[in-house]
């Protein structure tokens, strides 16, 4: 469904954020992208919807090559790619409903969005999604009054209102407490399964990635150094991805892993 062929990204003349990366993600697969800070995880997923322009290489979504699409066609492709962010990226001063509806901006014209006249079907879908993510009674609340977990649920509803085929998720749990983090990861993977979406999740938390992903890709300095099952991720492999550290204890609890990874 999604195929990357030799995608690279060069910032300026010195920093090569991505060395040629080739990757194929079939429909319905939940793929966790792990790696140290600065390994190129964020750059890689942003290349897929071209929030960051890849320097070279090709990206195929279904049968369409998207790295050279003109602005209008690019916007049409972006409608089919949902994105969820670390700091939620909600518009703080708008209500929950307005934030969720922004997922359908691509399919209404400027005046419809200015006057917030979204089609009735869209509004019905938004209500259903808010119900599904567990926030039915917060429709009219302003986004800046919500807690972190609630905000991320709004972010998930916004992304899913796009009816995407592919979900790009950038560090969804990094700003959340361990319990909320699990709930959010569970929600994302459940929704992906219900709708048969392909998902790429950037994530720092290795045990969480192992718990929820079907496939793990390890990135180091812009190169793929691991691509396999969650079970195959041994201390040896973790050393490959993150560098030398005592990984044998790290897998017991999440908090220790965080310390180990950050160190």
């Amino acid at each position: 469904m999604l195929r990357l062929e030799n995608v690279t990204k060069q910032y300026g003349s010195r920093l090569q954020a991505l060395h040629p990366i080739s990757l194929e993600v079939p429909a319905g697969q939940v793929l966790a992208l792990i790696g140290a800070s600065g390994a190129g995880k964020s750059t890689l997923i942003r290349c897929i919807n071209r929030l960051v322009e890849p320097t070279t290489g090709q990206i195929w979504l279904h049968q369409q090559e998207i790295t050279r699409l003109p602005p209008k066609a690019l916007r049409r492709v972006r409608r089919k790619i949902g994105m969820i962010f670390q700091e939620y990226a909600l518009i703080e001063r708008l209500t929950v409903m307005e934030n969720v509806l922004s997922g359908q901006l691509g399919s209404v014209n400027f005046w419809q969005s200015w006057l917030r006249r979204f089609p009735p079907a869209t509004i019905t879908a938004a209500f259903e999604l808010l119900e599904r993510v567990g926030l039915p009674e917060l429709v009219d609340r302003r986004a800046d009054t919500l807690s972190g977990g609630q905000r991320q649920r709004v972010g998930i509803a916004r992304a899913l209102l796009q009816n995407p085929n592919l979900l790009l998720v950038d560090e969804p749990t990094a700003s959340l407490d361990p319990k909320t983090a699990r709930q959010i990861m569970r929600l994302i993977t459940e929704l992906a399964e219900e709708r048969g979406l392909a998902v790429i999740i950037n994530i720092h938390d290795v045990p969480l990635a192992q718990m929820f992903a079907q496939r793990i890709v390890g990135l180091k300095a812009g190169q793929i150094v691991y691509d396999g099952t969650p079970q195959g991720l041994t201390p040896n492999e973790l050393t490959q991805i993150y560098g030398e550290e005592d990984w044998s204890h790290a897998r017991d609890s999440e908090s220790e892993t965080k310390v180990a990874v950050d160190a």
Partner: protein
Amino acid sequence: MPVSVVRGQKVWQRRDRATALKHWLGWIVGVCLLIGCGRIIAGATNWSFVWDAPRQGSEFLGRLFPPQWSYMVELGRPLWDTLNMATLGTLISIGIALPIAVLTARNTTPHPLLRSLGLLIIVVSRSINSLIWALLLVAILGPGVLAGVLAIALRSIGFVGKLFYEAIEEVNPAPIEAITATGASPAQILSYAILPQVLPSLVGVSVFRWDINLRESTVIGLVGAGGLGLQLDAAVNALQWSQASVIFLVILLLVLLSEAISARVRRAIT
């Protein structure tokens, strides 16, 4: 280095010797300059006028009082003109400054050349005081309220535009990224991701400028642009000090009122 070793102990000081000396030197030069300038100014002052000032001042105050309250009736129209000049001028400047701000802000400008053009307009508008704008416009359009409105507007474009574009540059980029990722058009990104973020500053800046403009529009009448200033000019020229004092009081009340309104509006917008 502020860290030195004295008898095996590490000692930290805010500044090392050389920097401390430079600071002292700076202070000495500054104080000398102050005294020198003071002497020059004192030498150029006609002190007999200064010693005479209290008597002149009290006589002047005596001429102001008692205010000629009946004159208040004639001030209705100029007061209305002043209010209109400030309000219309501010509205026009907002209408013009908003697109300029979008073209000028680093994160929304379509092209660096347009950004330079926007900055140029803002600098030109800001560098000319509204009194001078009014002088020019009265010469071109003739005296009256229209010249006043335009003078206020032209001066405000720079002020409002500068603060608007700075507000746009300070928005959180994450929501912009998120809205872009949904496939929204540039106009939708501007209205859905950027406008809600800058709205409180837009309203705050606009009301603040309106507040300033009320005061300025009482002054620009002095050069013929209508309103209370015109009345004040007439009263002073006719040596009608008891009328001038009424105008002063009206201006004071007007400013207090605008102060109260703008404070309330800014508090309401969060």
